[in-house]
């Protein structure tokens, strides 16, 4: 089936089967590797992408469902250098292995777009579905809170 999608601002015309999952198609046919293959059942958040301004689990979306939609991954956030949020993640040493990082960057980006000055509870709630096995989450939460403080500093 014909699949027309925009990935990070670039249009793609792809040929997919109905059973193809969006996560696999993005990685194998649309040249983005930041969405990670983790639990593949919507629990871990490592396959998170932004579809039409909302985060979704790309492991639970059929590729063909995305026809006509716009997709943003971490690659698309960084055309003009790292975002302020990404820089704060670096400054806070928020990640170690980095496997969860793309999903968390996107989940936090969505949060900050809708709630520019989130509370700690807001941040915890927004990231509750993104598992990190390295850090214990604190340096991640601190970075998002700092980004919220007016993008402050």
């Amino acid at each position: 089936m014909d699949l027309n999608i925009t990935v990070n601002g670039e249009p793609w015309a792809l040929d997919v089967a109905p059973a193809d999952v969006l996560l696999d198609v993005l990685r194998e046919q649309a040249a983005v590797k930041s969405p990670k293959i983790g639990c593949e059942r919507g629990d871990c958040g490592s396959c998170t992408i932004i579809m039409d301004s909302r985060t979704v689990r790309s492991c639970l979306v059929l590729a063909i469902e995305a026809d006509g939609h716009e997709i943003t991954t971490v690659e698309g956030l960084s055309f003009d250098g790292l975002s302020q949020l990404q820089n704060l993640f670096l400054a806070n040493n928020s990640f170690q292995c980095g496997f969860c990082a793309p999903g968390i960057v996107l989940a936090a980006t969505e949060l900050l777009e809708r709630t520019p000055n989130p509370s700690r509870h807001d941040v915890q709630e927004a990231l509750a579905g993104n598992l990190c096995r390295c850090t214990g989450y604190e340096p991640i939460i601190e970075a998002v809170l700092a980004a919220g403080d007016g993008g402050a500093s």
Partner: protein
Amino acid sequence: MVISHEFDYRRPSSLDEAIGALAEFPGSARILAGGTDLVAWLRDDAVAPDLVVDIKNVPGLGDIVLDGTTLSIGSLVTFTDLIESEVIEEHAPLLSEMAETVASTGIRNRATMVGNICSAVPSCDAGPVLLAYDTTVHLAGPGGERLVDINDWFIGLRETAMTEDEVVTRVTIELRSHGGVYVKLMRYAGEDLAQAAVGIVAYPDLDYRVAFGAVAPTPFRSTRIENALRGSVLDEALVAEAVELVDGEISPITDMRASAEYRARMTEVMLDRGLWAAVGRLSGTGPDYGERVI
């Protein structure tokens, strides 16, 4: 791990077209809305349809409308839509309290409330709340529209009153002044399914609705507990009497998320706290909606 079998995919742009597609594949078609259950089940080979009918392009199914006292929620309304809706916030905040407990943002952005009751797993969060609201489910099929009382909706594990040639278009709730609560027991916030759940609605004329989730093969309403409460103002003795009835009403199992014993004891505590919260909210003295009582 990929989806291991093939199927056809259609994305109809009208309800008639959707019903026509289902009729072409009797018994072997599945409806796709948010897909957060369906795609997981396809991956697990728990379902193996020949046709997947994606209803996201069918117009009118994504609306939340309050018409007089009738609240209508379309089958494409996501949990995030409920949380962000001003109509819901003002008239039925119990729905957003429930929606906020569903999995994570990334799931809530996609998963629909109607899909939740169509999947009909015992722990489905929408179940107890829609039962407590005396909801009506609206189905469209080859013979036109059919209405199903939510009390007749849940037939068994992952089994509903919907027939294979039908599509749910919306659910409706008749609203009047009420206080409600959704009490969900989880191991941790974010992603977890209910270990046990209680949905309660209290009305000013001392009528009560009490429904449970995750403690029986389906979500269900306990008319026995409701009858014990009806006509009385809550007091310690009455709540104790209601709590006393819980054990005979539920049939919890032991699984990886909780033991049957733990579920049973906690359901009693949740009913106790839930009743006070619902009645408190009715009189404006209860905890804010969204504030957890367990």
